[in-house]
């Protein structure tokens, strides 16, 4: 019985997704807000027959999915690593990189904190656990609670490279599931500090601080210390539907969506 069932079920299996479904996997930074809205705009502009599937568990989930063929586009908030490129190559897939937007990683503190500016050195010291108390850097005395992303996040790895000189996070950091949770916790904790993508820095109860005097606003995209690019990775032999969506992503109307969701457009 079970054999028959297996055979019947397995008999006409197709690969994931029919020709008109685009499956995207990867970064929570991109996949929570920006990509769903871009997809909706794309459909509204005359491509109503294309269907999207989005799963956003972290940038590191994009590359195994692309290698296994379970996703057609990978969203990543960090650049692909050497071993991930090779992993895809061994499965016969070469990836093309497309910049979809710029993001500024803003350091957020609780709204009631008197700290409004930090130097890069101070940020590094805080996030590596060297400085443990707000009093050491001019804030209201109290222990510093560090909120970070978890290890599947591209934001996590980017932050390590940009702000911490490659050093490890301290064991006392709390690893949250997404940008939103970090913002929520910092809003509730007077001694909290964290980093989020620009789109989340306007949450109620938090404020973004300037680094070395430069505020994280769009005009400062070239000078702000923690700017990074966000990417879409597409296999070289992607279907026409996928390529057409990628063209749309580079167009003006998609970049307007970028602006409206709080990212910096790639122009």
């Amino acid at each position: 019985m079970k054999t028959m069932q297996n055979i019947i079920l397995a008999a006409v299996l197709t690969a994931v997704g029919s020709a008109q479904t685009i499956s995207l996997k990867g970064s929570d930074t991109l996949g929570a807000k920006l990509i769903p809205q871009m997809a909706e705009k794309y459909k509204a502009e005359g491509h109503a027959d294309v269907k999207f599937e989005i799963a956003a568990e972290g940038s590191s989930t994009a590359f195994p999915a692309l290698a296994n063929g379970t996703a057609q586009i990978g969203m990543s908030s960090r650049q692909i690593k050497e071993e991930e490129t090779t992993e895809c190559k061994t499965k016969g897939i070469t990836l093309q990189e497309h910049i979809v937007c710029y993001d500024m990683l803003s350091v957020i503190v609780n709204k009631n904190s008197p700290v409004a500016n930090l130097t890069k050195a101070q940020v590094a010291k805080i996030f590596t656990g060297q400085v443990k108390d707000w009093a050491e850097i001019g804030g209201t005395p109290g222990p510093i609670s560090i909120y970070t992303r978890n290890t599947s996040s591209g934001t996590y790895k980017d932050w390590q490279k940009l702000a911490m000189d490659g050093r490890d996070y301290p064991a006392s950091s709390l690893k949250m599931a997404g940008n939103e949770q970090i913002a929520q916790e910092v809003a509730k904790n007077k001694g909290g500090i964290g980093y989020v993508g620009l789109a989340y820095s306007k949450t109620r109860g938090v404020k973004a601080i300037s680094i070395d005097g430069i505020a994280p606003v769009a005009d400062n995209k070239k000078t702000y210390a923690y700017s990074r690019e966000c990417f879409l990775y597409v296999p070289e032999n992607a279907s026409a539907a996928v390529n057409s969506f990628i063209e749309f992503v580079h167009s003006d109307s998609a970049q307007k969506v970028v602006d409206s969701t709080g990212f910096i457009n790639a122009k």
Partner: protein
Amino acid sequence: MISEENLIRKKGKEGKRGKVVDRLVRSAFAGVTYAIVLVALLLFGKIIKDGAPTLFTSEAPFINVSFLLDKNETLHVFDDEQGVRYKLPASEYSEFIKKNGEDSIYNHSSYSYSGGGIVGPIVGTLLLTIGSIMIALFFGVSAAIYLSEYAKESPFIHAVRLAILNLAGVPSIVFGLFGFSVFVLAVPVITADPSSRSLLTIPLFFGDYVMSFQGWNSSLMAGCATLACMILPVIITASEESLKAVPQGFRDASLALGATRWQTIRRCVLPYSMPGILTSSLLAITRVAGETAPIMFTAAVAAKDDLPWEGADGPLDVLSSQVQALPYHIYTLAARIPNSEYTQQAQYGSVFVFILLVAILSISSMVMRAKMRAKLKW
């Protein structure tokens, strides 16, 4: 133990003190019990209070049908020139722009997953639940029949019972791991074009087809199979109970009349235990519907434009597609996207719909159980 003095009930002062202690202890226990009940009721109350406004409207037909039947979209909130506030899901928003142009939008903000309705997650949950219950019922009832009708004490039976007990206790995330490594990555598939990461390919006799052990990928099937494994022990235990509840006299009479074992089961035992089996499987549904960990890696996606049967080439295409699910939707809303009054509405609305579904199922199972009990007179 019971001492000499207590053999005779005491009256008077000592009796009264005994009474006071009695009352104190009883009220202490009652207090604990009702505290739990109170916390539970408060919890339900909070969910109802926050979720009902999303689901129920003040005009007929009193239910926000669009919340239940629309697909999930981004919510756009903006003002127009006169300062009138609009809250529109993405499709209506783009129509508004087409009609009035881009410049008529002021103070625009958008909230992912908070507009439209939750028909995608509801449908996904229903499909996952029905699929897994069907699989589990088939295998579980058969196993229960064997255990209650045919089994004699033997090492095999002992091993089976041990296995059921242990399966019941396995944590849900371990099932997620199991489902991921087995159903997503390793079960056999018959295809003409095996993937390169397949563990083993066995050529078959017709055409180009091979049986390739490459897994079903993240799909409805993998999710149903994982969830079925999860509730199998529950179904087996519940079915065994209902089968045992049928009086032995039925079987004896049937066997005495010359029926075979299978005929006895088919005609004299199963029909009478079916109601019990079905009601307990309804209760198992409530467990399965609320699980997130097993489906996180085997079937669920956060956003999906289509219901599974739209744009599919046949029933097997439906089975191999990924689905949204209510608990996963709630998880996305709570932990992944910026919180605001609009997302809170969507969150609590989803939670409320979920609790409502579960309540409907439980109540109907209890009603069915009562009716069946009344019909079966033994």
